[in-house]
């Protein structure tokens, strides 16, 4: 069984969903089944992480032919990078299901299970066509969830997100097909496996176009500034579980894509793009922060804040030094927990007050102290409060930025300041002040506290004891970075 552990992790939720759908499960059974699949997956992932060898490269590999005629294979494996995101996904699913405890619309549960399979598959695939398959299919549940259960202009916004992301995916598909054909032309057989394709070399012109194809897909997903028009409307009108997955996982997959496929296939060409992306990321840092300051809708505000942090991660990635890289990987995890927490809190807030407009809120602190504590904790950990994981990560990236260039460092450091600015101002207006709302201020229930505690503990653990987590990824991260620096050095 343990040979196929990754396949089980990927497909358990899907098969659970199919099974429950076939027996037309009642809502209670559906909830139990979904919960079971998420907890079982969590255990399997924990098992994988436990037996994961930090020095060992790609592990738990499964490689089976899928469509032999064109060399597509079912090729999955896990290394330091995918392990981090895999852990995030499996850790976030159970709290989300607890959050959805009172949700009686069946489609919600089915979509969440399909979504888990989609994102897990995308993280673990090492074959480009397989990756593309999961990358596209994970959009469908999001599309349906926003369109069906969202609020505001949800039908329009869900069409917008699917069209924009598919535009990116199509350009990536083009690059994938081209690379596949070049491989066929040079080697004589078809293959889309990453290790095979990474042996290819292209001339500069071709390489620039092919990289652009991939980068467009990832830039839209992250989203870098300029490719972000879908973000705020989609976050604003999607239901809470969907928005948690979008900001905590799917946006990170854009970063993951650059990391895995960008640096895996075109490390030399990425140097060519690095100034552009660093500039975009720096603009993004400030632009998103300013938008967050001026935004009145809490969901949209944290959408912009999420964009700002993802720009920071992308920036760290393209600075290519060990501080920035460790920081980026660390921030992927820390920001996932913090943003999951804050979006869940916003969801709870909406349930209580039927609004997420800052101007309509106020005076929560005096009536619902526990709620206030958790809300403030997650908000502050987004801002990078010392003692939470975000602080460690942002500090690392800022150090890396100063190492690369003084002015980039200065600009990067402003994120922490601006984040403090919009977070504190928001907290002041929502939690304190006069309560101008007649709704009953119900405090957090035990169930809700149980759901939030793991996130709090993880954020504190990553903040106070980074040395507990870094050994998982440090050795390999360093090794792959050295490799890339060597290649770039050869170029110069």
């Amino acid at each position: 069984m343990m040979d196929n552990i990754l396949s089980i992790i990927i497909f358990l939720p899907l098969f659970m969903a199919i099974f429950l759908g076939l027996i037309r499960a009642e809502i209670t059974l559906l909830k139990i089944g979904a919960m079971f699949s998420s907890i079982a997956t969590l255990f399997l992932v924990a098992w994988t992480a436990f037996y994961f060898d930090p020095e060992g490269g790609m592990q738990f590999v499964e490689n089976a032919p899928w469509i032999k005629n064109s060399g597509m294979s079912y090729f999955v494996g896990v290394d330091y990078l995918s392990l981090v995101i895999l852990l995030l996904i499996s850790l976030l699913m159970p709290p989300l299901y607890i959050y959805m405890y009172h949700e009686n619309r069946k489609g919600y549960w089915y979509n969440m299970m399909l979504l888990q399979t989609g994102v897990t598959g995308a993280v673990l695939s090492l074959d480009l066509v397989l990756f593309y398959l999961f990358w596209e299919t994970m959009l469908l549940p999001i599309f349906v969830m926003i369109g069906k259960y969202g609020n505001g202009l949800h039908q329009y916004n869900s069409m917008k997100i699917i069209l924009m992301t598919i535009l990116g995916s199509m350009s990536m598909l083009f690059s994938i097909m081209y690379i596949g054909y070049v491989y066929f032309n040079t080697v004589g057989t078809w293959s889309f496996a990453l290790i095979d394709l990474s042996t290819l070399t292209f001339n500069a012109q071709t390489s620039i176009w092919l990289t652009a194809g991939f980068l467009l897909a990832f830039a839209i997903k992250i989203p870098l500034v300029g490719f972000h028009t879908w973000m705020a409307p989609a976050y604003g009108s999607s239901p809470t579980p969907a928005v948690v997955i979008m900001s905590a996982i799917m946006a990170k997959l854009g970063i993951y894509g650059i990391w895995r496929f960008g640096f895996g296939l075109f490390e030399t060409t990425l140097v060519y793009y690095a100034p552009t992306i660093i500039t975009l990321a720096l603009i993004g840092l400030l632009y998103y922060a300013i938008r967050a300051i001026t935004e009145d809708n809490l969901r949209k505000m944290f959408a912009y804040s999420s964009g700002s942090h993802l720009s920071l991660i992308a920036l760290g990635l393209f600075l290519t030094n060990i501080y920035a890289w460790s920081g980026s990987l660390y921030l992927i995890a820390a920001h996932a927990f913090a943003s999951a927490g804050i979006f869940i809190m916003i969801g709870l807030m909406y349930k209580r007050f039927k609004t997420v407009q800052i101007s309509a809120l106020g005076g929560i602190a005096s009536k619902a102290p526990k709620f206030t504590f958790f809300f403030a904790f997650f908000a502050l950990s987004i801002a990078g409060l010392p003692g939470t994981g975000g602080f460690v990560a942002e500090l690392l990236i800022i150090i890396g930025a100063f190492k690369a260039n003084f002015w980039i460092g200065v600009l990067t450091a402003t994120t922490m300041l601006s984040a403090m600015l919009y977070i504190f101002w928001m907290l002041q207006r929502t939690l304190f002040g006069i309560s101008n709302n007649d709704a009953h201020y119900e405090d957090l229930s035990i169930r809700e506290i149980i759901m939030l505690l793991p996130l709090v503990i993880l954020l504190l653990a990553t903040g106070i004891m980074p040395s507990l987590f870094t050994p998982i990824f440090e050795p390999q991260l360093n090794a792959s970075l050295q490799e890339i620096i060597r290649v770039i050095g050869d170029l110069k």
Partner: protein
Amino acid sequence: MMIQFLLALPMVIIVIGALTLMLLSQSKRFTLDRLNLIAVFFLVISLVVQLITMGDHKSTFLFTDLLGHSLILDDFASIFDLMFTVGAMLTLLINNDYFKSRSYFNGEYFALILFSVFGMMMLSHAHELVTAFIALEIASLSIYALVGYHKNNKVSSEAMMKYLVLGSMTGAFFILGTTLIYGAVGSTSLTEIATYVIINEHQDMSLLIIGSSFIMITIMFKIGAVPFHSWVVDVYHGAPYPLTMFMASTFKIAIFAIALRLYLVNFGPINSFWSELLQIMTILTLIGGSWLAINQKLVKRMLAGSSIVHSGYLLIAMSSLGLGSEMAAPAIMFYLIAYFLSSVGAFGILSFIASQSKRQMTYDDFKGFAQKRPYMALMMSIFMLSLAGFPSTIGFLGKFYIFTSAIESGQILLAGLGILIAFISVYYYFKLIAVMYFYTSDAPQKIFPVNISTIVIAIMALLVIWGGIGTSLIPFIPSPDGFIDIAKRTISSLI
């Protein structure tokens, strides 16, 4: 002689079936249900005979002492025969409810369907231009009559007139082309033409080229390539649902059967002549088709417009073929199978809904459909995803092969345009999914009706998914690999 007869038996059975149905339809004792069953029965027998005799006969000419080299039997033709028979069978089975719900259907309908299947089969076997023309006309004339079957309906009659007049006119081009080729070669047999082309490869063959270009016009008209597309949307709209399904899936495949045979074998050495023309036509078809599909309010018309786009994808592969891509021909075959499965399914669901109500079926009529009929909506979504080329469906692999063949032949920009058009198509296909799922309806949920129509549609949906994700791990079940193998073998039997 006996063996020869056995090989021709599938076609003969279809003709006998058609004649029998014509006679039986005069009797009051035979209801539509029974006649439909009889038609399917003949198709099944023909299918069984085809399966038995398949495989072990590479390029046999039928009745050489009687017909000369005008009918050939090879793997290529038998695969197409199989698709026509299955296509007709599916059309009849899926629309069983629809036939009963409309009073204007009667027995001749089934006879005409069988006649057109016979025409198509002959077309795929034709190895001589006049035979091909006659076969094409047998198929087309049956289709003309079927399009205008709803005599009292203005839209239907208009569609019939439009198709008949335009179709006959372009049919004349085929004959004109044949004459010119006869003038050059001195024969209309494809064998002779192929030899002539090879011998005179470096000499002036303008007469032959002009002649074959005229034949191309007919073919382009029948598949609805821009600028010969003006009939498509109206005719698809005016025709009854069963026929729209039959035309979009089966009849289009038949045209590609003759197009591939001519293009690959006979004009093989000179087909680079058309590549620029084909490229221009491909670009026009892709853009024009998308434009038509985006602007429609009726789902049926949208599918009609999108069928032009799918012809455009196939034309991409055709022009790659001319530029020497090896994968292009199997890609065309695979795409035909993929398009066949998904469009039959999509039209099948439309006709099923139409059999329950008299609605026109605009996008708006689909509001809340997922709530009313969750399974139907799921299957419709699967077919839409496949038509849009979303991964995990067979449509994705179809497009994948087409675009890689374009890249292989160096038509990078054409592949890029294809991708862009596929992106645009996401809009109008996803619009239907969005409408079905994003709106609530007051009507109570209906139970899934288990009858022959719905079961067949469900099987198609499963095949579409299986064709996209099926692995080569499970033997005996044809997966994408199997489909591609079939496609490759078919093409290799041609060359």
